[in-house]
């Protein structure tokens, strides 16, 4: 207020001006820091919750899958294909020259050493996310004997590599580990 500007308060103000500003700035910055810190839990709550994370790895019993068969199971709410390749399918996959592939990988790159017959992939087409056919009994397996995505016609071979159609990459092989000859842990 203009009426306050008398001689003695003006003097007091001159000497106190720094301290006064400092306190106001400190108070406002503290409030700001508190507000920012509060935002963290308010946003972090959207991350996967503990019960969802608890299901992020599963163990699958594969003892019942005969050579040439495959099963479709669910992992992280997505389909997963576990396929027991026949010797024929393995040699088919190994016969391919990787240099000519869109996403060059050998069957050995995509399986566990010593267990090359177990092809474990996500059942999610890398094009737009449809579930390819070929895992269940009687479904068409496409031109290369692996999987076939009916949405836009992507053909995968017996190592689940993309051979024809719009998909940019091979079917994803999730991280997995054989706990024994009959149990595989995915994730």
């Amino acid at each position, binding site marked *: 207020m203009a009426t306050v500007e008398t001689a003695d308060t003006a003097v007091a103000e001159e000497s106190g001006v720094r301290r006064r500003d400092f306190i*106001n700035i400190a108070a406002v910055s503290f*409030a700001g820091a508190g507000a920012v810190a509060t935002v963290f839990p*308010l946003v972090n*709550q959207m991350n996967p*919750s*503990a019960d969802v994370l608890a299901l992020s790895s599963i163990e699958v019993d594969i003892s019942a899958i005969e050579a040439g068969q495959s099963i479709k199971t669910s992992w992280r709410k997505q389909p997963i294909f576990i396929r027991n390749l026949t010797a024929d399918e393995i040699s088919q996959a190994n016969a391919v020259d990787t240099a000519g592939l869109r996403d060059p990988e050998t069957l050995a790159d995509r399986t566990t050493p010593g267990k090359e017959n177990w092809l474990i992939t996500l059942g999610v087409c890398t094009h737009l996310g449809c579930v390819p056919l070929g895992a269940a009994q009687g479904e068409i397996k496409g031109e290369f004997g692996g999987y076939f995505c009916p949405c836009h016609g992507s053909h995968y071979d017996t190592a689940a590599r993309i051979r024809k159609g719009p998909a940019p990459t091979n079917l994803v092989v999730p991280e997995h580990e054989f706990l024994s000859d009959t149990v595989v842990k995915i994730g």
Partner: protein
Amino acid sequence: MSFPWAKEYTPTTDFGQWMDKQLPLPRFIYNSVGAGYPAPRNLNYMWNFGSLAGLFLVVQIVTGIILAMHYAANANIAFDSVEHIMRDVNSGWMIRYAHANGASFFFIAIYLHIGRGLFYGSYKAPREMLWLLGVVIYLLAMATAFMGYVLPWGQMSFWGAKVITGLFEAIPLVGKPIQELLLGGFAPDNAALNRFFSLHYLLPFVIAGVVIMHIWALHIPGSNNPTGVDVKGPQDTVPFHPYYTAKDGWTIGLALIFFTALMFFLPNALGHADNYIPANPLSTPAHIVPEWYFWPWYAILRAFTFDFLFIPAKLLGVLAMFSAILVWFFLPWLDKSPVRSGNFRPKFKIFFGILVIDVLILGYCGGAPAEEPFVMISQLAAAYYFAHFLIILPLLSRMEKPEPLPNSITESVTGKPLNTAS
């Protein structure tokens, strides 16, 4: 806005000027809670609870939106989804406890804010509309809080919903159909839970809208003050910013300390154990009580134990409970004393003190089981409550001789007459 000496917003940057021409939002804020709003210089700490109620409304809306991301409004899984929030969602327990206790703090702030208005005559001309909007906010907040308490679908949620919707049953002829309409069934179930969730999500935004009108209505006459004397000139006011933003700022810190202490160390102190038992339509809790902020009204509801002629006691209780709040709508015309502030009304001051104690007693009885002596005490207390607003205040304005008022706010602050102030 209201006073000619209010500082004018002058944008200093090019961007500020461009903004001011196209969307004068900074000007709007400057004039409502910035330096452009001159507020009486003598406001005491009772004037801080409006901003605190606003703070807790924001806390409730923010935490509520987050809880709605995880909550499932289905009678089969609602209870478990709340426990999912408490156990598995990242920081979910913190957000839920903030929401549950934030409701209590919202009501603490709003009750002190109402009490301030009652004592200092803030409901009197020219602020009747401001007061009426405030009562509307309070009613909406009660409805919101009640429906929110139903959502966890615990025992108290279920039976609270049943008792409160059962009140409508007391209305003659149309009562039963109204109750069934509200519940979408014959007892609370999925239909009721879903609509309560929908409305519980909607109403806070309606409240926020009415709050904006409330603040708008405040800025036309300007704030009341502890003397109740009108602002006479620039020497009576200080700019809202930085003076009252700083004052509100530090009390917000203080309120948050109390709030977080309760929320982190005694998060269930204001809740009820029965609400951790899933709703069971076949078993009633030993004694059904609403949340503490409804206790005074609940005591009034239960105080009517005898039929009056053809009016059943239950209907009387319902009428009285609603009248107890609706009477506030008529308050500006019931109390015609020209003096606003209770500080200068010696007799009013005494009756106001009795009213405060009376409401506390009603609150205590409302939370106690419905047995003697609590029913008798609440009958006396409820009798005073109605007498205070409907009989004492109208008569007091005629019979009381107020003390002399100061000539101006500045005079009351400095103790010197106005003419020497400048």
